[in-house]
C-alpha cells in the first residue's frame, strides 16, 4: 500500500517533485564540484611544484662566473640532499620579435633553454608532461603567447647578440618555476641544435648565461646561507617564496574557491527551503492519513523514502554533472598552473553522498512535526487551531498602490521566511560579484601605486638601455642615461625629469638571521618621497627602512640594527621606518640616498619614471604618452594606473573570472527564481484561480508574482552593495597583504557598485520571474472550485 501511495505521490505532484529533484541535482553538483575545487585550490601550489620537481630551494645565477663554481659549492654543503642545474641564456626584453619585426611584450627578460637540458617537468595545456621540441620550433611558457596575441604556428624571431634565428611556435608550456605572473621571466624551450645556434655569440653568452638551480634540502636556511658563496646570484627563492609568486594565480583560484563555497551555501539554503516547502504541502494528506489511523512513524518513513529515492536519483545526476562543472570553474584559474589533488573524483563521490545524507537529515527534521501534529492540525496545514498566527502586515486600505504591488510587498513582509531563500541566495551571489568588481577596479586604478613606487606622470618599460645598465660601471652611468632620456623627451617640447628605482642584491644580517635581500635605492627620487607606514624615511648612510616581511625575516624592528654587506664594506644600519611594497612580494629594504651604490650588485632596474616639470593637464599627459611612444617605439609607455596593472599582471585573468562569476551568478539567479517561482505557483494555485475568478487579469497576476521577486532581488542587491565595501576590505586585504601591501585603499566605483551590477541582477531576476510567472496563465478560473 505504501508503495502505491508513493507511486501516486510521485505521479500526482509531478511539478513539485520535478522542482525538488532539480534542487537536489543543483545542490549535489555545486557541493561536489565545490568541495573538490576547495581541496584542489588548497593544495594548489604544492601539488604543482611537486609535480614539476622544483625542489625546496631555487637559485638563479647570471654571468659566466658561476659556471663550474655552483656544483663545487653545493657539493660541499651538507644540508643539500640533491640538486639539479639547468643552463640557459637571458635575452633583452626586446630580443623577441614578430615575423614582421614588431616587438613583443615581455614583462621581464626572457630565458632560452634547450629542452634536452630540462631538469624539471613542463606541462602542456592539457597538463601532460612535455619532453621534446622539434627543430625550428619553440615552446613558450607563461602568458607570452596570449599577451602578444599569438597562436600556434606563428613565427617569431629571436636575436641574441649577433645571432638571429626564426622559430615556429609549437605551443605553450606551464613552467612551475618561472611561469608565475609575479616572476614573469618567459622561458623559451628549444631544440638542442637551435639552442647551440642561438648561443654561438660567445661574447654575448659570457654576460648572459644563466644557471637555474633546484635544490632538495631539509634545511632551507643553511642552504640559503651556503649559496651566498656562489658568484652572480641574481635570485634565491625557497618553496614559500615560489608559492607566494603564484599568489596572483591563487587569487583567481581563491575566487573560484569562494565561488564554490557560495554555491554550496546557496544550494543548501534553497534545498532547505524546497524540502520544508514540499513537506508543508503534504500536511493535508498527512492529516488525512493520521485521521484514518496510520502511525506517525509509518507516515514519516513514507516521506523519507520518497526523499531518499529522489536524492539518490538527483545525487547520481548531480555527481556526473559536477565533474565537467568543476573543471570549467578551475579552467579559468589554471591557465598557468597544473591543478589537481590526489583524491580525484573520490571527493565528488563523498560529497554527493554527504549531500544525500544532509537532504535526508533535512527531510527527517521537516517531517518531525508530523509526530506532534494532531490530524486536524495537519489538515489545517500545520497551524494550531485558534492560535493561528497573524499574517497580514500591511493594510490595503491604508496604501494608495495598485493591488499587484501591495500584494507583492505584503506577501514578503507577511511571510518573510518564504522569500528569505531568494534574498539570501541573491545576496551571497551579488555580494561576491561586487567584491570582485571592487578588487578589479582597485587593481586597475592608481590606488596601488604607493605599493610599487612613487607616483609619476608616465612610466617607461622595456628600453634597451635598462638591460645594459645592469652591467654599468658606476652610478654615474645610470645618471647619465637618465639625463639623456630626459633631454630627448624635453627636446620634443615636453620638459621633464627622469628617475629610476634600482634594486641591488645585498646580504643583510641581524643578530638572529642572515639573508640575501633586495635593497632599493632610487636615482632622481629621494627616499623621503616614498610612503612609510611607520617611522621616518632613512636619511643617513647607516639608516634603512624595511617591510614587515623583512622585519619578520630578520627578527628586527624599528630602532634595531641590521648589518648590510655592500660588497666592499659592511655597514651597521638602523631601521628607521616600515613601508609596504608589492615588489619582490614585500621582501625589500629601502636604503637612504647616502648609502653606497655598487653597480655590480644590481639585480634589476624598475621602470623609468617620467615627471613633467611644466605641470601638464591629464589630457596633455595622455597626448604626451603617445608622443613618447613614437619616440621609443620598442618601449612601453604607461600612466600610473596602467603601470599598476602591468605590475599586477593578474588583472586580465581577474576580469575573466569576474565575467565568469557574473555569468554563474546570473545562471544561479535564473535557476533559483524559476524553481522558487514554480514552487510558489504550485502552492498558490487556489489563490491565483480565485483572483482570476473575481476578475483579475493574467497580466495583474503575472505582475504580482514578478514584483515579489523584484522586491526580493532589490533588497538583496541593495544589502549586497552596502555590505560589499566592508566585505571587500575584510576578504581582499589579506590577499594583498600576502603580496606585501597590508594597507590598501580600495577603489569603489559607486556607479558600478550601486547601480550597474545591482541593476543587472535585478533585471535578470525580473525577466526570469516574469517568464516563469507566465505559467500562471495556464491556471483556469474554474480551478477555484476544485481545489482540495
Amino acid at each position, binding site marked *: 500500500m505504501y508503495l502505491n501511495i508513493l507511486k501516486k505521490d510521485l505521479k500526482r505532484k509531478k511539478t513539485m517533485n520535478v522542482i525538488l529533484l532539480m534542487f537536489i541535482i543543483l545542490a549535489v553538483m555545486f557541493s561536489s564540484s565545490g568541495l573538490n575545487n576547495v581541496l584542489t585550490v588548497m593544495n594548489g601550489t604544492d601539488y604543482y611544484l611537486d609535480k614539476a620537481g622544483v625542489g625546496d630551494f631555487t637559485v638563479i645565477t647570471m654571468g659566466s662566473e658561476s659556471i663550474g663554481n655552483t656544483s663545487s659549492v653545493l657539493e660541499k654543503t651538507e644540508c643539500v640532499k640533491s640538486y639539479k642545474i639547468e643552463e640557459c641564456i637571458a635575452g633583452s626584453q626586446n630580443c623577441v620579435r614578430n615575423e614582421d619585426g614588431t616587438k613583443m611584450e615581455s614583462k621581464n627578460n626572457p630565458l632560452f633553454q634547450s629542452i634536452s637540458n630540462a631538469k624539471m617537468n613542463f606541462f602542456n595545456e592539457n597538463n601532460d608532461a612535455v619532453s621534446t621540441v622539434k627543430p625550428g620550433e619553440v615552446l613558450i611558457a607563461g602568458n607570452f603567447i596570449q599577451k602578444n596575441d599569438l597562436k600556434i604556428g606563428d613565427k617569431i624571431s629571436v636575436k641574441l647578440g649577433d645571432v638571429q634565428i626564426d622559430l615556429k611556435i609549437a605551443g605553450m608550456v606551464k613552467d612551475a618555476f618561472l611561469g608565475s605572473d609575479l616572476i614573469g621571466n618567459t622561458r623559451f624551450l628549444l631544440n638542442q641544435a637551435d639552442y647551440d645556434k642561438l648561443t654561438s655569440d660567445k661574447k654575448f653568452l659570457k654576460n648572459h648565461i644563466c644557471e637555474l638551480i633546484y635544490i632538495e634540502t631539509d634545511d632551507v636556511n643553511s642552504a640559503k646561507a651556503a649559496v651566498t658563496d656562489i658568484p652572480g646570484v641574481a635570485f634565491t627563492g625557497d618553496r614559500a617564496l615560489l608559492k607566494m609568486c603564484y599568489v596572483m594565480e591563487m587569487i583567481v583560484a581563491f575566487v573560484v574557491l569562494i565561488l564554490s563555497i557560495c554555491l554550496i551555501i546557496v544550494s543548501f539554503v534553497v534545498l532547505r527551503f524546497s524540502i520544508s516547502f514540499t513537506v508543508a504541502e503534504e500536511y493535508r494528506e498527512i492529516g488525512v492519513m493520521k485521521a484514518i489511523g496510520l502511525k506517525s512513524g509509518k507516515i514519516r518513513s513514507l516521506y523519507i523514502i520518497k526523499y531518499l529515492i529522489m536524492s539518490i536519483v538527483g545525487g547520481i545526476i548531480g555527481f556526473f554533472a559536477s565533474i565537467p562543472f568543476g573543471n570549467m570553474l578551475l579552467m579559468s584559474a589554471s591557465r598557468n598552473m597544473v591543478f589537481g589533488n590526489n583524491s580525484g573524483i573520490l571527493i565528488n563521490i563523498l560529497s554527493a553522498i554527504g549531500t544525500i545524507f544532509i537532504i535526508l537529515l533535512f527531510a527527517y527534521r521537516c517531517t518531525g512535526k508530523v509526530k506532534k501534529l494532531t490530524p486536524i492540525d495537519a489538515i489545517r496545514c500545520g497551524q494550531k487551531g485558534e492560535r493561528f498566527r497573524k499574517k497580514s502586515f500591511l493594510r490595503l486600505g491604508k496604501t494608495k498602490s495598485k493591488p499587484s504591488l501591495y500584494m507583492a510587498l505584503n506577501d514578503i513582509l507577511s511571510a518573510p521566511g518564504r522569500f528569505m531563500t531568494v534574498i539570501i541566495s541573491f545576496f551571497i551571489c551579488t555580494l561576491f560579484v561586487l567584491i570582485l568588481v571592487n578588487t578589479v577596479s582597485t587593481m586597475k586604478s592608481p590606488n596601488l601605486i604607493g605599493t610599487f613606487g612613487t607616483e609619476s606622470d608616465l612610466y617607461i618599460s622595456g628600453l634597451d638601455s635598462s638591460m645594459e645598465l645592469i652591467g654599468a660601471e658606476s652610478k654615474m652611468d645610470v645618471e647619465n642615461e637618465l639625463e639623456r632620456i630626459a633631454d630627448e623627451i624635453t627636446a620634443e617640447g615636453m620638459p621633464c625629469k627622469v628617475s629610476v628605482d634600482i634594486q641591488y642584491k645585498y646580504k643583510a644580517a641581524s643578530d638572529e638571521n642572515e639573508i640575501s635581500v633586495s635593497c632599493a635605492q632610487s636615482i632622481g627620487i629621494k627616499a623621503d618621497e616614498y610612503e612609510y607606514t611607520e617611522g621616518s624615511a632613512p636619511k643617513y648612510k647607516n639608516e634603512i627602512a624595511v617591510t614587515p616581511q623583512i622585519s619578520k625575516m630578520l627578527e628586527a624592528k624599528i630602532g634595531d640594527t641590521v648589518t648590510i654587506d655592500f660588497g666592499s664594506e659592511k655597514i651597521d644600519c638602523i631601521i628607521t621606518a616600515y613601508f609596504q611594497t608589492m615588489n619582490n612580494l614585500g621582501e625589500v629594504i629601502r636604503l637612504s640616498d647616502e648609502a653606497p651604490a655598487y653597480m655590480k650588485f644590481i639585480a634589476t632596474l624598475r621602470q623609468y619614471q617620467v615627471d613633467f616639470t611644466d605641470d601638464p593637464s591629464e589630457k596633455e599627459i595622455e597626448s604626451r604618452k603617445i608622443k613618447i611612444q613614437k619616440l621609443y617605439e620598442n618601449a612601453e609607455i604607461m600612466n600610473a594606473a596602467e603601470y599598476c596593472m602591468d605590475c599586477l599582471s593578474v588583472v586580465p585573468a581577474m576580469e575573466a573570472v569576474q565575467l565568469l562569476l557574473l555569468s554563474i551568478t546570473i545562471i544561479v539567479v535564473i535557476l533559483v527564481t524559476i524553481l522558487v517561482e514554480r514552487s510558489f505557483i504550485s502552492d498558490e494555485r487556489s489563490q491565483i484561480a480565485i483572483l482570476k475568478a473575481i476578475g*483579475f487579469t493574467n497580466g495583474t497576476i503575472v505582475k504580482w508574482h514578478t514584483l515579489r521577486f523584484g522586491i526580493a532581488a532589490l533588497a538583496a542587491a541593495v544589502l549586497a552593495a552596502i555590505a560589499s565595501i566592508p566585505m571587500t576590505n575584510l576578504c581582499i586585504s589579506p590577499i594583498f597583504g600576502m603580496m606585501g601591501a597590508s594597507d590598501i585603499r580600495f577603489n569603489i566605483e559607486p556607479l558600478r557598485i550601486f547601480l550597474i551590477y545591482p541593476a543587472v541582477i535585478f533585471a535578470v531576476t525580473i525577466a526570469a520571474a516574469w517568464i516563469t510567472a507566465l505559467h500562471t496563465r495556464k491556471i483556469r478560473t474554474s480551478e477555484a*472550485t476544485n*481545489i482540495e
Partner: protein
Amino acid sequence: MSKVLTAKDLCKTYIVNKRQNNVLRNVNFSIDEGEMVAIMGPSGSGKSTLLYTVSGMDSITAGEVQFCGRDIAKLKEKELAGLRLDEMGFIFQQMYMLKNLTVLDNIILPSCQSDKIKETRKETVQRGEELMRKLGIISIADNDITEVSGGQLQRACICRSMINNPKMIFADEPTGALNRTSSDEVMDELTKLNNEGTTIMLVTHDIKVAAKCTRVLYIVDGNIKGEYNIGKYENASQMRERKRALNNWLMEMGW
C-alpha cells in the same frame, strides 16, 4: 423586465482519456433582472459546469451566452476578466480568500483593482466596512482570514462579491460547507440582496436554499429537464409551503 443572462444551445464537452464527455447538451434558459434562480440536479449532472460557463469562468464548446447583451464567447480573456471584475460577483462553496490579507482587505481588493470604481482608497474602505456592517461582520474587519468562522468568512465572501456593485452574483453551493445556522444566515443575506434588486444564480443541493429562490431549474445529464417558478420569497411563514411544493416538483423530476 430585461434579461440579464441568456443561454442558447449551450454545449460543453470535455475530452478525458480521448473520450468525449458531453457535460452540457444544448442548454437553453434565461434569467431576468432581479431574479434569484437556483440550479438543482443530481451529482454530476452539470450544475456547476453550467454556472461556470455562463459566468465566463470556463469556455463553452458551442452555443451562445449573452450577459447584459454581450456574447461572452466572443470576449477576449482580458475583457472577460473585466466583466467578472465589474459586472459579476462570485461566491464559492469553499471560502477562498487570499491568506496574507485581512478580511476587509480581501473584500475591497476587487474594488481597488477595478477601473470602473472612481473613488479614493478611503472611500473604498468605507464602502467595504458598510457592507460588512450590513452583513453583521464588521467586528472581524481587521482579522486575518484564519481567525474567523466559516459562516463569517462566507459572509465576507458575499461582501467581496458585492463590492463592485455587480449586475449579477453567481454562487456555487454557497452554504455547502456551512452548518445549519450559518447556512440560514448566509441565505438570509442573499435573499436580502435579491430583494434589493441584485440578480442571483446559485447552485444547490439544499431544498431549503432553493425554496428561497424565485425559480428553480432542474438539470439532468447536461439538459434542463424542467423549471419551477415559485415566486418571490417574502417571509419565513411562506417557507413551509414553498418547500413542500418544491419537494413535490422535484419528486416529479426524479430527485
